[in-house]
């Protein structure tokens, strides 16, 4: 029991935080400020991060291996924590009536995300996934004075419900074929079933799983919810979805797939089916995500499509990992996460500041270079990083993914990735153009809360730092993972 407390401490502390926020919300007067609760939430997340660091490099498995935590997982959790921290900081000025509940839900979602990537059991996975999703549904719909917020939540919940039905359906087949829900054991039994001629069930099961995975990643063709939800959700929640939920989704996908098909007998399925279908998903995501973003005026919607494209890029890394299992591919994925996290957080933070009450159409950025040169510059850097321009973290991330992909002879994927990157230049640069050479109608100064300032500064420094000194991270990563 003591072990369980120790090992699960990063998650436990979140539970404690949830409880504290809940109590605080109940105790506080209806009209009093909820910033206290925000501080509690931030402290909780920080504490969780600290505990993660304290856990060091040990490998933990609990409950027959249905809970695992190794340095890589832990470092991903670190990213989730960092992402959530950014979200919480941004939330300071978010206009939400039920602020206390909001913090609680964010913590719950983080808890879901963290247990999602630690779990190696179908049941465990499902429950954590639903915790994450359900909190997210509520978070999306929390800005009740905006119609679109509710509508987004509606679409999200229906789409999410359907896709979790698919996911479950797939899981049920895997369970049926293997008789276990424990992922560490499942693969061997599946191999037996495969040999006995049940491969079609495997295909079916996998494709059904793919729906659930695709939904979490927002990969084409399971991305349809993303633009509307990103647009309708409060900007902070969009940030959460784009960063925490997405990263957790990737690791979920990676673990699920690699553990399902880990057994030697299933390698042929991995190559003949899993990788090709991921490949299709990845290509479609890159193409449709980037292409559709071309037409968007609404910044958040554009970023939604862009994040679909990025999901495609990250899928490339996932495929490389599945193919070669080299640590370098893993670190390329991680690097991309870092770059993507920093840039996305920065971008959303900037939009959050500038758009304020207005709907963040591209026009709100007009003449930003005059109104706030610093913000204009930072936003440019973030967008350039998303576009993968050198000297930003995004470039190194893209480069490492490309190297992994090329190393696994995925030439067409490499080509598509670069081609769509070129397409993506268009809409990223259009935003930059809007700031720098569109004259402004609105000349009001931009005011910014310090908490957002922290996020932007941190993202900016990080984007440059990891773009110029990639070795700091790459070296450490290979130490951790290796």
């Amino acid at each position: 029991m003591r072990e369980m407390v120790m090992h699960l401490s990063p998650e436990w502390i979140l539970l404690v935080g949830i409880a504290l926020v809940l109590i605080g919300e109940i105790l506080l007067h209806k009209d009093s400020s909820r910033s206290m609760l925000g501080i509690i939430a931030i402290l909780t997340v920080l504490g969780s991060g600290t505990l993660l660091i304290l856990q060091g490099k040990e490998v933990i498995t609990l409950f027959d291996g249905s809970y695992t935590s190794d340095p890589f997982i832990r470092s991903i959790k670190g990213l989730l924590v960092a992402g959530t921290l950014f979200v919480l900081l941004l939330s300071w000025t978010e206009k939400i009536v039920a602020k206390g509940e909001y913090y609680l839900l964010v913590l719950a979602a983080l808890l879901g995300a963290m247990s999602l990537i630690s779990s190696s059991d179908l049941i465990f996975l499902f429950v954590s996934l639903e915790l994450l999703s359900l909190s997210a549904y509520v978070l999306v719909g929390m800005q009740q004075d905006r119609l679109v917020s509710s509508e987004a939540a509606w679409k999200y919940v229906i789409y999410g419900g359907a896709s979790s039905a698919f996911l479950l359906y797939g899981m049920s087949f895997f369970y049926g074929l293997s008789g276990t829900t424990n992922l560490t054991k499942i693969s061997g039994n599946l191999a037996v079933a495969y040999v006995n001629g049940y491969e079609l069930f495997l295909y079916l099961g996998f494709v059904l799983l793919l729906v659930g995975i695709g939904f979490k990643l927002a990969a084409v063709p399971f991305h349809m919810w993303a633009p509307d939800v990103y647009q309708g959700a409060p900007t902070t929640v969009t940030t959460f979805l784009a960063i925490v939920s997405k990263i957790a989704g990737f690791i979920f996908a990676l673990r699920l797939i690699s553990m399902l098909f880990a057994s030697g007998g299933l390698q042929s399925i991995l190559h003949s089916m899993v990788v090709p279908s991921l490949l299709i998903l990845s290509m479609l995501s890159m193409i449709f995500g980037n292409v559709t973003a071309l037409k968007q005026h609404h910044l958040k919607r554009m970023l939604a499509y862009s994040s679909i494209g990025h999901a495609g890029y990250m899928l490339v890394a996932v495929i490389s990992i599945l193919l070669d299992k080299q640590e370098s591919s893993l670190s390329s994925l991680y690097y991309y996460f870092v770059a993507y996290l920093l840039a996305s957080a920065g971008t959303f933070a900037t939009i959050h500041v500038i758009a304020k009450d207005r709907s963040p159409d591209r026009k709100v950025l007009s003449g930003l270079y005059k109104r706030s040169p610093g913000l204009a510059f930072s936003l440019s850097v973030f967008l350039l990083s998303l576009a993968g321009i050198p000297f930003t973290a995004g470039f190194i991330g893209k480069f490492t993914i490309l190297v992994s992909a090329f190393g696994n002879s995925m030439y067409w994927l490499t080509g598509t990735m670069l081609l769509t990157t070129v397409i993506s230049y268009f809409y990223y640069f259009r935003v930059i153009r809007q700031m720098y050479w569109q004259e402004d109608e609105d000349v009001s100064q931009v005011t910014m809360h310090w908490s957002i300032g922290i996020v932007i500064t941190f993202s900016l420094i990080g984007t440059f730092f990891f773009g110029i000194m990639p070795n700091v991270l790459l070296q450490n990563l290979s130490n951790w993972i290796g």
Partner: protein
Amino acid sequence: MNAEFLAFSILSVFAIGGAVFFLNAGKVMHMAIALAFTFFSLAGIYLLLQAEFLAVVQVLVYAGGISILMIFGIMLTKPEEGAPSRSFQYHQWISLATVTGFFVIIMTIIYQTPILTPAGKETSASVKSIGSILFKNYAIPFELASILLLVALIGAIVLARKEQK
């Protein structure tokens, strides 16, 4: 042709019938009742599969809780009936084709390689065994599920309550 098969046939006809009625009922309330019927039938099937605990849960949660919840929902939203728009009809046909395609594929797979139950390995799960496994191996998911319910609770309150301003 044993009793179990007979029971299964009847229950499945009920379940499918309920579902089909759900699809085609003219009034919203009828749909809800039809679906509740399906849920009940499923509980029966669970019994057939010797999952008594689940059968009870099914009746409580689905046939009882969720159906009632939905009926509340229906009443709160005062649905009006109307003819589907043209574009929607178009959408319906494609949906039908797609679902049929999906159905055909699943059925083909199921029937092409039927899963044979190994003889004598059927287990009956008592509530006790379920309980013990649940709290031994699935303690964390259970905890998470409780958080999930908390989230759902708070979420539902936050979302459904009237705007304060």
